[in-house]
């Protein structure tokens, strides 16, 4: 059952990733990216990372992608003009990509043969354990992150404001 779920959502993630790269229109790419993020959230649940799965849906697929779609709508971004491709790139692109990905898969299997298996429910990390670790061991990075977010807010406001004379 877990294997079927993994294969299903991995296939959705890869298909949406390919669609992100191939689509001409940015709004189609954004919808594909939301598909990738949603299927990755399911994979996080299979890995027992419940809190990360929830945050993935809320922060990534919710907040960040809404920001992207908003900017695409605001700028009225149209389709890309097609790029002129030479015949070797048309002919060799997809076979070379397949060979490259197969090589990556082989290398992962070769160098990490002793990795374990993932069983659903074997490990489950809720918000309490993450919170305990975040506020004890990783307290300083957490506080630095708050300053980072503050700077990002200020930067976004400064960059996107209207000049008032």
């Amino acid at each position, binding site marked *: 059952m877990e294997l079927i779920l993994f294969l299903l959502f*991995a296939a959705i993630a890869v298909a949406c*990733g390919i669609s992100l790269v191939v689509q001409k229109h940015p709004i189609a790419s954004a919808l594909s990216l939301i598909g990738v993020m949603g299927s*990755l959230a399911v994979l996080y649940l299979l*890995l027992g990372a419940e809190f990360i799965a929830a945050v993935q849906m809320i*922060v*990534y697929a919710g907040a*960040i992608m809404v920001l992207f779609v908003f900017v695409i709508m605001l700028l009225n971004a149209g389709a890309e003009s097609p790029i002129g491709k030479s015949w070797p790139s048309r002919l060799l692109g997809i076979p070379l990509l397949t060979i490259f990905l197969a090589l990556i898969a082989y290398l992962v299997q070769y160098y990490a043969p002793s990795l374990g298996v993932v069983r659903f429910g074997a490990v489950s*990390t809720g918000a309490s354990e993450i919170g305990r670790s975040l506020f004890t061991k990783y307290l300083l990075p957490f506080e630095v992150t708050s300053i980072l977010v503050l700077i990002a807010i200020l*930067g976004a406001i400064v*960059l996107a404001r209207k000049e008032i004379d």
Partner: protein
Amino acid sequence: MPPLNSVPLSWYLILSAILFSLGVAGFLFRRNIITVFMSIELMLNAVNLSFVAFSHQLRQVDGQIFTFFVMVVAAAEAAVGLAIILTVFKNRNTLTIDEVSSLKN
């Protein structure tokens, strides 16, 4: 073929590598600045999957903490980056990255 109730961890890593490669391809081949930015988000997501997979393997919560930090940095990056895109569009009226090349000259 593994049994139906378990998934080898290396498959998660391979999926992560595939998604990362797709992100790199999008970053290199696309010319719309927003799509390039979304490819970067795809790469960050692929790395997050690796972090969570190793967190499961090592039975430690640290990998998920790092994923959490990556998400926060991605949110901050999206806010600032999209503001920069807005400013570029206001000044140059284009979203094609090839036409934004004033640092080159």
